[in-house]
């Protein structure tokens, strides 16, 4: 029996629902002018929407996340990806808040993405899937809110690519979002950030099995390319100190003679990360969603802050001091833009040895900040 009884503080057994938010007749009009339909979105919710409908918190997931943020799927031994944050008595307290987490459009965990069937051809979209922009992700989030009967969120929260969605959403539709919580994110990738993504995409697209994106029709997948992309990205998610502490120069497996195979523990760890990733993630989703980040530059737009100036949002921006993927300078830039526009913005740089991945971890100072912020936010919404 692998089944583990949920801990106290767990939302317990949960399941993923699916909503069809757009159809062929009523398609999603995308940023690039293309129409997309149908659009299905997989999502989970935890806690109850209250009568005033003012206690909803929307979670935007990062590049490789999914709708399963908290609790356990029937028979599963591992909880959702943000379970340390969401549940009774946790900072996103499901006794107080109604928590919503969808899988992104373009993803591969139940929502419509490039591996879904194109109704026009009867085959997977592949590279015919329209290029996604941050606004397209937000448009689908808003459609899900309407579907759930929520007009205004107490908060939208996300880390990394998730934080970028929150930023775009609150800038474009400030009346949707009372509080915007942007964690370990960026308002504009640097050349180094884009360079890492470029190598990842090249690894995938030059895998012989990629077949111009039509690998699914051939019953294969560019696993080598996707696992290399994941291995490299994973290095950027951890700090050098974190890797040193976890692995140092330990040998694993033990090998008597020097050679070119897997010898160090860190190599075997990355190998495992790459291999397990290809079992749950689709290469085309990886291409499309990394590209969303590359193009993201919301403050470059004329009048980017006009709407939010008219309807101020309360902001909480958080970075981690050892994050070198989207380091503190990325968050400071967001804070500067918002603060210079007179927005009520709070910013914290949390001390953590774990690098970019810190946003997923239970770091006391980080969780205390979110708890305190959300409790206050709820008081203010009610007054």
């Amino acid at each position, binding site marked *: 029996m692998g089944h583990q009884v949920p801990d106290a503080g767990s939302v317990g057994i949960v399941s993923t629902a699916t909503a069809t938010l757009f159809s062929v007749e009523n398609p999603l009009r995308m940023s690039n002018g293309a129409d997309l339909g149908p659009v299905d979105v997989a999502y989970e919710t935890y806690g109850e929407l209250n009568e005033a409908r003012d206690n909803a918190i929307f979670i935007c997931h990062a590049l490789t996340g999914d709708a399963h943020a908290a609790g356990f799927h029937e028979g599963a031994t591992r909880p959702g990806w943000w379970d340390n944050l969401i549940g009774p008595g946790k900072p996103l307290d499901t006794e107080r808040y109604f928590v919503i987490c969808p899988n992104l459009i373009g993803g591969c965990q139940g929502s419509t993405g490039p591996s879904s069937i194109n109704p026009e051809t009867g085959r997977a979209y592949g590279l015919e899937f329209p290029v996604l922009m941050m606004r397209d992700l937000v448009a689908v989030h808003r459609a899900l809110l309407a579907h759930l009967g929520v007009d205004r969120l107490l908060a939208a929260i996300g880390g990394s690519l998730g934080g970028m969605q929150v930023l775009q959403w609150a800038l474009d539709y400030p009346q949707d979002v009372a509080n915007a919580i942007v964690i370990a994110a960026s308002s504009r990738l640097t050349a180094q950030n884009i360079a890492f993504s470029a190598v990842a995409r090249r690894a995938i697209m030059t895998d012989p099995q990629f077949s111009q994106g039509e690998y699914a029709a051939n019953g294969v997948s560019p696993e080598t390319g996707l696992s290399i992309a994941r291995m490299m990205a994973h290095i950027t998610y951890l700090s050098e100190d974190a890797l040193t502490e976890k692995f140092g120069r330990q040998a694993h497996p033990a090998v008597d003679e020097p050679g070119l195979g897997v010898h160090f523990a860190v190599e075997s760890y990355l190998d495992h990360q790459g291999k397990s990733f290809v079992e749950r993630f689709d290469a085309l989703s990886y291409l499309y969603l990394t590209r969303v980040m590359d193009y993201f530059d919301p403050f470059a737009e004329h009048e980017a802050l006009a709407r939010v100036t008219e309807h101020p949002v*309360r902001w*909480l921006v958080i970075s981690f001091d050892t994050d070198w993927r989207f380091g503190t300078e990325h968050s*400071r830039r967001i*804070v*500067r833009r918002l*603060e*210079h526009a*007179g927005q*009520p*913005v*709070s*910013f*914290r*740089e949390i001390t953590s040895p774990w690098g970019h991945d810190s946003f997923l971890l239970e770091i006391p*100072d980080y969780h*205390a*900040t979110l708890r*305190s*912020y959300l*409790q*206050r936010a709820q*008081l*203010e919404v009610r007054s």
Partner: protein
Amino acid sequence: MSLRPDLALVAELVPAGSRVLDLGCGSGALLAHLIAAGGCRGTGVEIDPEAVVEAIGLGVPLIELDIDTQLDEFADASYDVVVLSRTIQTVHRQVDVLTQMARIGSRLIVSAPNFGWWRHRLRLLRGRMPVSKDLPHAWYDTPNLRFTTLLELEELFARLGLKVEQRIPLSPTGEPLKVTGSLANLAAGAAVYVLKG
């Protein structure tokens, strides 16, 4: 919520409806009061993690940064009032901090403990560093880094072109004192200044 007396005094010097930057805001009591009772908007700056979490819990917008080196984050003339309350003695770069404050805001409120208070002078005569109810720390565990008298603080203001519009000398228990001129440097345990850049 009742405000600590020294903060209540500062609060009275902030015009209603101002945009206020409070440097070294601690747990945010002053700003929370100004936002709730004075119709102000504002931002606090603090670096102590516990105080930061407390301020966030009070609904005070708070930016964590180092006052000594990171005030560049704020734009020119972006606040009506910039407050530095009992913090000037804890920073390394007084000149930079005051210059930045004058760049960011038009009205500056600075309060500082006075190491020239007569009781401190007596302690020094007896060969001991100043310690009082207001400055309770031994020399080896004080958060205060730079010690000044009111006389020399005012000399610095003058050197930086900061005009003293108002000076409120305080007793060691924080009540305003009715002393004027150079006597304040002897009689006051601390003082609050309103400056114009």
